């Protein structure tokens, strides 16, 4: 579920950045249409990946519940972090993405 959570958070960050208002607030530059589209696709892809990694666990009922919890927790964390610590919000997403191969490897082993 760690991998799923990291991917959720990263996915939401990408979706957030795909909106020109938030892109401007967080990265202080203008969002081009292509980049926005890319970020949106990336965001959704990460969320889907997160769900599939969660469902790789045998008990799908429990996994689904935990995934929703991770989804909501990461969204709340991101949205309430952005106005107070925007850089931290982005760093967490980047760190999460960097750590995800490790988490994925760990999950495969278990």
């Amino acid at each position, binding site marked *: 579920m760690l991998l799923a959570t990291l991917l959720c958070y990263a996915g939401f960050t990408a*979706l957030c950045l795909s909106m020109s208002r938030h892109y401007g607030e967080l990265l202080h530059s203008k969002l081009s249409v292509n980049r926005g589209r890319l970020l949106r696709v990336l965001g959704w892809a990460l969320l889907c990946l997160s769900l599939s990694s969660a469902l790789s666990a045998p008990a799908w009922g*429990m996994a689904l*519940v935990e995934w929703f919890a991770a989804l909501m927790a990461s*969204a*709340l964390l991101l*949205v309430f972090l952005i106005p107070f610590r925007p850089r931290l919000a982005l760093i967490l997403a980047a760190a999460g993405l960097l750590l995800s191969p490790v988490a994925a490897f760990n999950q495969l082993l278990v």
Partner: protein
Amino acid sequence: MKEGFRQAMAWLHTWIGLIFGWLLFAIFLTGTMSYFKAEINRWTHPEIPVRSVPAAASIERAQAYLQSNAAGASRWFIRLPDDREPALGVMWQTPGQEGRRGFVRKSLDPQSGEEIQTRSSMGGEFFYRFHFQLQMPHPWGRWLATAAAMLMFIALITGIITHKKIFKEFFTFRPRKGQRSWLDGHNAIGVLALPFHLMITYSSLVIFMSMVMPASIIASYGDNVQAFYADIFPSTNGAKAAGTAAPLTPLMPVLSAAQQQWPDGNIGRLVVNNPGDANATVAVFRSAADSVIHDNGVALIFDGVSGALQTLPTPRSGPMLVSGAMYGLHIGEFAGPLLRWLYFVFGIAGTAMIGTGLVMWLAKRQLKHVKTGVLPLELRLVHVLNVAGMAGLMIAVAAFFWANRLLPVGLAARGDWEINLFFSAWGLTVLHALVRNGRQGWREQLALGALLFAGLPVLDIFSGGGYLLASLQQQDWVLIGFDLTALVTGLFMAWGATKFRPVPPVIAAKSDEQTATKKTRQTGIDTAQLEGEAN
């Protein structure tokens, strides 16, 4: 017509939120606390020893105790200790007394089998029961709570319909912008935790659906409603007593046999029907922590005299799995520590969603009266209910815990006294809110709440058994966790109180007037912005 629809839904959302907001706030707060019911119980009953005793050993103690104290009972209930509830729970139905009054409950030490002498207190159970019974006589409390749930459901859906920019403003939260921030916060909490809010609300309807929506039961089963319950809870059908005495089989082998059926599961409880009779049966239920689906109807049935396995649990149908899943999701028994804390966080979020709504409703209408400084009666009433319903309720909760530590252990009806103090404190906060004006009311109650909550760990150290120090020594994280949570709550309330710092009157009048004229100029825009949700 689309414009009219959104506006109508906004109107409905606002009215439901206003009329039932305070009730829903109380339900949500006590419900959220109930996720840690077992932990709160441990704090309010510090005498309960924490021992990890294998289930097999404790079942022998339970049987011995029940055999000597409840030999003539028609049913025995045994709840095995687990990592959250260390006591061995036994309960029996005294023969000849039907209904809820006929049950006797005891907590036993799983190691010695002796009854635990603990202070009489409802503890976490009080908040849990209040949450769905509202301290009202049966069944009115449940009806009101379920009605509130239906209204919450309507408020959620109308809120979603009204929130026009639900996707555009998905990630939007702008603090320090006055009313805009309150609305952003209300929306953010609502949207980001929407799966939780919807689940909690709909599942609470499902939990009491047989009571509030019995039409289909009556239409299908007519007079024989018992047949319906027999159909959905097959494992609770007990054969009638034969009348001939026969010794009850030792329960430990029964437990092992059950464990073999569920190799990766845990046993939760046992129900012995007609103990000591030839027709005795033992029903073994799996622990609620094992599955999301909470199902009381599924059990292994053993013969009570021979100990042989009689019936395997019947596989459940789709509808029963769905309703079981809804019940399970609501009470969250299956949640491990991390997930349980998340349940708690989402519950607090729901509570805050309701609270921010109530605060916003009043703030918007208070604008019109800034110049005169006098609120009309209705708005004054809303203000009093806001302060007492939110800060006041928190004070009452803290007062309950203070009473738990300060009331003498030997006091008669001690448990009732704790509850009386809870309601008395709450009542006093209403009186306080009536006599103090806007900012003072909030500041003083938040400050008092902060003192009471932050003072709980201190109280713990100084009262009687030096509980906090003992927990720190034993690394009892549950008790330490309670004290820490109380401290954090206190700090949060203190921070809230600073937001209502008194402003010198001249400066206040001047700034209020400036804000008022600014707002009047902006009213067209402001109202549009706020009502813009519905446009």
